[in-house]
């Protein structure tokens, strides 16, 4: 799994499944927070601080994190409580993850994802 955030937009690639994902706005900011090590509660606290009075923020953020978990893009055991120092995109829009599966043939068979120091294409997994 590799990803990066440019201009607030996160692009994430699951090299095993060949799916790739995008999230901008609040979703991109949350992905940045996750990359910085923030846990679930820290992200919710950040969102509440960033969007005071905004209805539905907690449910939106929790739903977004659940979507990330369901797609196996994040682990559930990250507990870092420090509130992330991430700028809050304005205006608020509920974070959303777009899923793209149109390049699975090329991504899953392109060996880059398993390149290691032994070379192309992959080590056999665990045998």
């Amino acid at each position, binding site marked *: 799994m590799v990803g990066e955030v440019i201009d607030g937009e996160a*692009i994430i690639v699951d090299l095993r499944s060949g799916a790739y994902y995008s999230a901008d706005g609040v979703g991109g900011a949350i992905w940045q927070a996750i990359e910085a090590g923030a846990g679930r509660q820290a992200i919710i606290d950040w969102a509440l601080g960033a969007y005071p009075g905004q209805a539905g923020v907690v449910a939106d953020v929790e739903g977004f994190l659940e979507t990330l978990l369901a797609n196996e893009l994040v682990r559930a055991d990250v507990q870092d409580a420090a509130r992330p120092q991430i700028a809050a995109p304005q205006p608020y829009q509920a974070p959303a993850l777009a899923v793209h599966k149109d390049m699975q*043939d090329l991504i899953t068979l*392109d060996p880059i994802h398993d*390149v290691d120091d032994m*070379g192309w*294409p992959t*080590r056999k997994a665990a045998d």
Partner: protein
Amino acid sequence: MTTVTAVIPVFNDAAYLAEALRSVLDQTRPPTQVLVVDDGSTDASAEVARGFAPQVELIAQANQGIGGARNTGIAAASGDLIAFLDADDVWPLNSLQVRLEAMEADPSLAAAYGASEHFFSPDLDEAKRAQLHLPQGHAHARFAGAMLIRRRIFDEIGLFDPSLRVGEMIDWTSRLQDSGARIGKIDALVMRRRIHGDNTVIRERPSHGDYLKALRASVARKAAAARDAGAA
């Protein structure tokens, strides 16, 4: 008659190039033009290609990467259709025939592709084979070497992005798809992909950034298309 140009970019693959070229020249429906683009090789690749003259034309250039080398071949191609083959891969003997038949049967197709299979290069020793994973069976993937493409499509959606050292096919295929062009899928095996432990991807590490760049562009096109659809 449909004319086909085969474009074979090569970068330091002298050991495999002759086998690739024989597989091209021995096709049941051979291409009308065969171009080898030597992308700045420092080994005997150019010499190997010259050994196949006059059936094979050689174009030499400073190293630009696979996308730039394919673009050079496209610019020099005289065929209505273009088929690429990486210098370390091979075509089964009816590869072009089955793809040509598909394109001729349906002129609305912008491109057609068939199945690929992977094989261990015979020069790969047992120790290295044990460390490498060989994808099994036939895979329908839009590899450059598995496609036959109408040349005019490059005028419509552009050439390969030479700035991408890897992921250039993801980028180009994504543009092809997003253009709405029709792409035919053929059951037959059309390419055998060699695994030899020194494929391009390992030379070009680290290149995840190129992957993400190609996919980011794809996401941007989809978002723009969705905005246009919403505005319509």
